């Protein structure tokens, strides 16, 4: 807030914060546009004349001024929202015009800066006269200059962080801009760091924690710790609230100040430091919440130490952006739109958090749980609100684990994301609100008026609208808005809890259409397709005659992973089995029994131990189809069979009688007989999909892929690059462990370079399908494979001739039908299959990376959304 006047030839250097709203102030013809063009990058300057032209077609049309400024402010808003420095090229000589711009800067928490271009009136008039496209009267310039002169006195009071006044044509011509990073911008500092939660004067615990973290503590002659350095150059980050309530706030300050000044630590202030500064500087503050302890302790210290503390705390920057923007630290956390911004409310948020304005039954302010809504990419580490255990909530973590209340002092290693904690030696201070949950109270009721929120509540904006999901295997995948709208209904009305919905299987493309008489699909075409993608070996897997089942099962019922996935409220409390659209496969005791049997088989097969897992996600097929689709089989398939069975014999009898009379019915008799045979075969085909089940009795599960597994804590592993024989090997062991529930998947490896092997594959398929099998799925043996044209189809289905009767109709094998049915287009299905595959992989990758539920759900939801794309259902 300094007006700088420099006279003489020295070129002026105007300092401008890297993220700011630069307001140019000057009369028409003062050279603002030229200045903006030469000193700033293209698009950084938004000109009112340009906006006037946009809305009216005429840069001189003063009647369009209001509309032009509306457009200008919208553009400025969008740029500031995105964190881009913006220059407003308008006269801005009226206080009201500037007031709007200062308000706009504040609304986006960026610093407003004014640059005044003050040229003699004669120069401006001369310039305006020489511009053929402008129509600015001399009197206008006079009026503007008057307003400008009047403004110069008040500019400093209008809220500009900096005011630069350039006087005269020369000074303007030679001035340069210097962009300066904000104090909170430490993006170039990449760590590694150890972020430490609220210490509150617990010096002994801090020493213990630093030691545990590997720091070497340095002491002064009195034995007091004054610094700590890490041999590997790690640095500590103190998240504020170093002082108050605890036994040795001065000791903590001495150590932390030493570390910060030696470059061994960074620190942000907490609300307690904020209040301490006010108390030390003699302001009138209510001495409470442990401040009295600190002040008493500091009274024992020399005056210069107190002054040192005051200066140190005053100079702390309320939040820091680190590691290229990937890490943000602030005492009370910070919502994404405030990262790297500077304003009073950003500071207040960083110090005190977001409060709802309500107070709870203990008289404490109700804190608005901003972290539940956090959707940012940056990791946010903070303290402020004591919690029994540090936990990730949407990429944020509160590290205040209440050491002063008898909890523990916690640190998080970054980027490793490992928690390190030391317990409190004693309860130093009784909290106003019970710090640890009262085991006797209703867990949620304990909050009283406090809006207890589940961090896993998903927001409708996580899934609705046109969205794109960035996948590791196939880049950005766009989800059309209308597909998302359709999926929202299915997801909301029928799917299991999103926390337990870690994966939805992709659709699978059939093989290219065969031209062989009597067939639509043949294995030869699958082999050819993979060979052309340079896949050497494929595995042919029997296609089971059931429904898709995704099974999430935890080793232990009601354990930590079960709670994390929200399946502790599901039957059996250890998992969920759902369909390809996320519906529960079974309810009640059947669901519980299935999951228990699966968990037990994983135990018997030694899979838990082998994978080091406490939960496993399996991709499987559940049989019989009638277990889930009995109604469909009856209403549709069996009905068609019944109608055909009823009409064919009398039709043939009538034709036979006519033939016997010598009536020439042409080939109608033969055709009808052939239709009758086809419908009988059709009936045989659908019948294989039904057998009686009672609860779990009769139900079979055929797993064919392990999608992911993980330990009790967040994290885990995916298996998309393990070859299929590994996956089937696990499946085989499950069959061995529980041959009643589990059903093996027959398979054959085919070497595509070997004709004999291919022939064997074809024969295998023929035998299997002629015996009534549904068909097979051909997959690259190595599993996830990239070919010449990118990701290779994860599988191609080759369905049996008889099975296809229940897809294409009982009589589809009649050659005159096949001729038309062969005209089918697979492109869309293949593209969908790949996109859904990539999204499914992305979902499980996010699960094992410990990403927040909304990130997992985004990918899972996208699979469902793509499934609502209209595609020929027979494919």
């Amino acid at each position, binding site marked *: 807030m300094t007006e700088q006047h420099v006279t003489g030839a020295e070129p002026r250097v105007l300092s401008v914060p890297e993220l700011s709203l630069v307001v140019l102030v000057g009369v028409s013809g003062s050279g603002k546009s030229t200045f903006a063009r030469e000193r700033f990058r293209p698009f950084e300057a938004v000109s009112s004349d340009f906006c006037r032209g946009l809305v009216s077609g005429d840069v001189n049309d003063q009647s369009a001024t209001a509309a032009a400024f509306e457009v200008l402010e919208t553009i400025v808003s969008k740029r500031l929202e995105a964190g881009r420095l913006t220059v407003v090229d308008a006269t801005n000589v009226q206080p009201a015009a500037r007031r709007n711009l200062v308000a706009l800067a504040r609304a986006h928490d960026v610093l407003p800066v004014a640059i005044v271009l003050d040229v003699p009136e004669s120069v401006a008039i001369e310039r305006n006269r020489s511009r053929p496209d402008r129509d600015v009267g001399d009197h206008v310039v006079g009026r503007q200059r008057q307003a400008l002169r009047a403004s110069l006195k008040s500019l400093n009071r209008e809220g500009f962080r900096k005011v630069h006044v350039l006087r005269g044509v020369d000074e303007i011509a030679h001035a340069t801009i210097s962009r300066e990073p904000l104090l909170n911008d430490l993006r170039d500092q990449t760590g590694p760091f150890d972020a430490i939660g609220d210490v509150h004067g617990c010096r002994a615990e801090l020493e213990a924690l630093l030691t545990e973290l590997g720091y070497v503590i340095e002491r002064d002659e009195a034995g007091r710790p004054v610094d700590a350095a890490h041999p590997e150059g790690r640095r500590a980050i103190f998240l504020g609230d170093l002082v108050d309530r605890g036994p040795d706030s001065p000791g903590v300050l001495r150590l932390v100040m030493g570390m910060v000044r030696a470059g061994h630590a960074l620190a942000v202030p907490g609300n307690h430091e904020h209040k301490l500064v006010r108390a030390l500087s003699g302001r009138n503050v209510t001495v409470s919440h442990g401040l009295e302890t600190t002040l008493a302790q500091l009274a024992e210290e020399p005056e210069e130490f107190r002054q040192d503390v005051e200066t140190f705390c005053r100079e702390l920057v309320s939040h820091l952006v680190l590691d290229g923007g990937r890490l943000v630290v602030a005492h009370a956390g910070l919502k994404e739109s405030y990262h790297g911004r500077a304003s009073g409310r950003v500071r207040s948020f960083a110090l005190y958090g977001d409060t*709802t304005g*309500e107070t709870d039954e203990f008289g404490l302010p109700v804190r608005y749980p901003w972290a539940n809504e956090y959707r940012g990419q940056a990791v946010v580490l903070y303290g402020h609100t004591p919690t029994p255990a540090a936990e990730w909530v949407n990429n944020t973590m509160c590290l205040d684990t209440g050491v002063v209340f008898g909890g523990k002092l916690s640190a998080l290693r970054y980027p490793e994301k490992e928690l390190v904690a030391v317990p409190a030696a004693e309860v130093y201070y009784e909290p106003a609100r019970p710090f640890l949950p009262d085991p006797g109270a*209703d867990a949620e*009721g304990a*909050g*009283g*008026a406090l*809006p207890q*929120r*589940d961090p896993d*509540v998903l*927001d*409708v904006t*996580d*899934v*609705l609208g046109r969205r794109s999901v960035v996948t590791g295997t196939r880049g950005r995948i766009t989800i059309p808005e209308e597909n998302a*709208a359709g999926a*929202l*209904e299915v997801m*909301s*009305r029928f799917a299991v*809890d*999103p926390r337990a919905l870690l994966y939805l299987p992709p659709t699978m493309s059939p093989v290219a259409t065969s031209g062989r008489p009597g067939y639509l699909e043949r294995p030869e075409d699958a082999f050819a397709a993979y060979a052309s993608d340079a896949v050497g070996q494929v595995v042919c897997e029997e296609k089971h005659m059931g429904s898709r089942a995704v099974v999430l099962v935890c080793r232990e019922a009601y354990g930590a992973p079960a709670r994390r996935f929200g399946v502790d*409220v*599901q039957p059996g409390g250890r998992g969920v089995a759902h369909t390809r659209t996320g519906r529960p496969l079974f309810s009640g005791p059947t669901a519980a029994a299935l999951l228990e049997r699966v968990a037990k088989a994983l135990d018997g097969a030694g899979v838990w131990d082998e994978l080091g897992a406490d939960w496993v996600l399996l991709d499987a097929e559940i049989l019989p189809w009638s277990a889930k689709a009995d109604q469909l089989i*009856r209403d*549709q398939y*069996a*009905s*068609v069979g*019944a*109608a*055909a*069975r*009823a*009409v*064919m014999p*009398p*039709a043939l*009898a*009538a*034709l*036979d*009688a*006519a033939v016997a*009379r010598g*009536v020439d*019915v*042409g080939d109608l008799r033969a055709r*009808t007989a052939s239709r009758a045979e086809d419908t009988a075969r059709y009936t045989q085909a659908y*019948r294989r999909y*039904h057998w*009686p089940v009672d609860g779990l009795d009769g139900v079979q599960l055929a797993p064919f892929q392990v999608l992911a597994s993980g330990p009790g804590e967040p994290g885990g592993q995916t298996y998309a690059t393990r070859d299929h024989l590994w996956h089937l090997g696990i499946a085989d062991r499950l069959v061995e462990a529980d041959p009643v529930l589990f059903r093996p998947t027959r398979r054959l490896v085919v070497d595509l370079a070997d004709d004999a092997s291919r022939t064997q594959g074809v024969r295998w398929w023929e035998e299997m399908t002629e015996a009534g099998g549904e068909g097979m799925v051909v997959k690259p043996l190595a599993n996830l494979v990239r070919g010449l044209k990118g990701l290779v189809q994860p599988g191609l289905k080759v369905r049996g001739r008889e099975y296809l009767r229940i*897809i294409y*109709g*009982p009589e589809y094998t009649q050659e005159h*039908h096949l001729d038309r049915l062969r005209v089918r287009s697979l492109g869309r299905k293949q593209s969908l299959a790949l996109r859904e595959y990539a999204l499914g992989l992305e979902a499980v990758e996010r699960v094992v990376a410990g990403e927040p539920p909304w990130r997992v759900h985004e990918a899972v939801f996208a699979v469902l959304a793509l499934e609502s794309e*209209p*595609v020929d*259902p027979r494919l």
Partner: protein
Amino acid sequence: MLVTLTTTAGAPAGSVEHGAPLTDATDLGYLLHKHPARAQSFDLPVGTAHVFYPEADAARCTVALLLEVDPVGIVRNKRFGGRDAFSLAQYVNDRPYAASSMLAVALGAVFRTAMTGRCDARQALADGPVPLEIHVPALPCRGGARLAEHLFEPLGWTVDATPEPLDPTVPEWGDSRYVDLRLTGTVRLADALRHLYVLLPVLDDAKHYWVTGDEVDKLLRAGEGWLAAHPERDQIMRRYLAHQRRYVEDATDRLVTLDGGAAPEDGTAEDGVRPDEAPAAGDVPAPGSDAVGTTAPTLARQRAEAVIAALHEVGARSVVDLGCGEGALLRLLAADRRFTRLLGTDVAVRELEKAATRLRLEDASDAERERVRLVQSSLTYRDERIAGFDAAVLMEVIEHVDPPRLGALERVVFAEARPGTVVVTTPNVEYNALYPGLEERGHRHADHRFEWTRAELQAWADGVAHRHGYAVSFRDVGPQDVGPRALGAPTQMALFTRPTEARA
């Protein structure tokens, strides 16, 4: 699909005075204008119809009409495509085998002249009843064999309708919807054909084409002389006209005028809804009343009025109707100017489109569109657009949410949106005992995930109120059970209010 029609020689019993006796059964060929010695084929829009005679001698003559439907063609032809072009059902269906409206169309086309009763060669024969046997295998019969009897017997037929098993290898599946129909009687041939023409699609209760106003003319023509007096007349008309009420009314009016008879009983109100479509949520008619023609308002109406009354009591001016469906409640709210801001949400875009139509938002003024808005939203996802209202209504909504997901609904509504008032209505399952046909623990709607007793609602609501700082009271909506079991009312309401001083 097949139909055969047989005549036997001999005097028609008891009706000699009405026509000439049939002395040679092969005269059937004259009546049908199809020569018994030849097989003929006709290309029709529905497929190829073949007419031939399996037997033809003086004593007995049978004509067969065999319609070959092109199953691939059906799907490719838009005209026959179902409502949902992307459903698999249309690819595997019974139309190539069952005696449906397609067979009726073929009958009408192939025997067009015979159906008019004109026969230059044997007009006397055509004018009188002849002994006939008709066989229709694989007749889809929605309503069972009894309906076939009810429809054909009044027309002078002896009916033998045998249900076909759904699959003889799976006896527990029981009967299919097809019957093997045999009709025997002495009936004028033209009438017999017209009976089939009208009643085949009526029994199937489906048509392969869109029913338009022309159908009324066709029905009246084909039904001339027998439909007006048929005891099942109204049902025949409803089904034939695909339950399209205005056509049914048109046909009824014209029939009544033709016959000079009395208007049919007003029993058509429920026919705006197809029998296979679900009724509106919870809208089971009150026991003992037909919900039609009685003066008591429907339960749905009483419920909406109870909700509105509660909203007025708490002085709500802005209201969000969560799960507004087609906007039945929203329309009433919109008509009440005391409500200054209304938002309807539903998870189904289709429902919202219907609601927009119902509310005529398209034609509304800007101010009205600002006042009444519709957005897609879900009760298991947080949505800031539903925050900031005086009151939220969950009318017959919670029972459509899976119990494990109720926690998410609770958070979204009571913790996140936090309106001053929340009105929840849901069925009272105790009252189900008073609905005939609703079995013990049966639900009023197929999509209901649960139906609660009064105690169950209260337990849930008390917990919600406690957790989120609301007070809750309960009300009955609809007629009270005055019986000894005191089962309450069909609908129960929980009214949540937040003490004003605690509001942000």
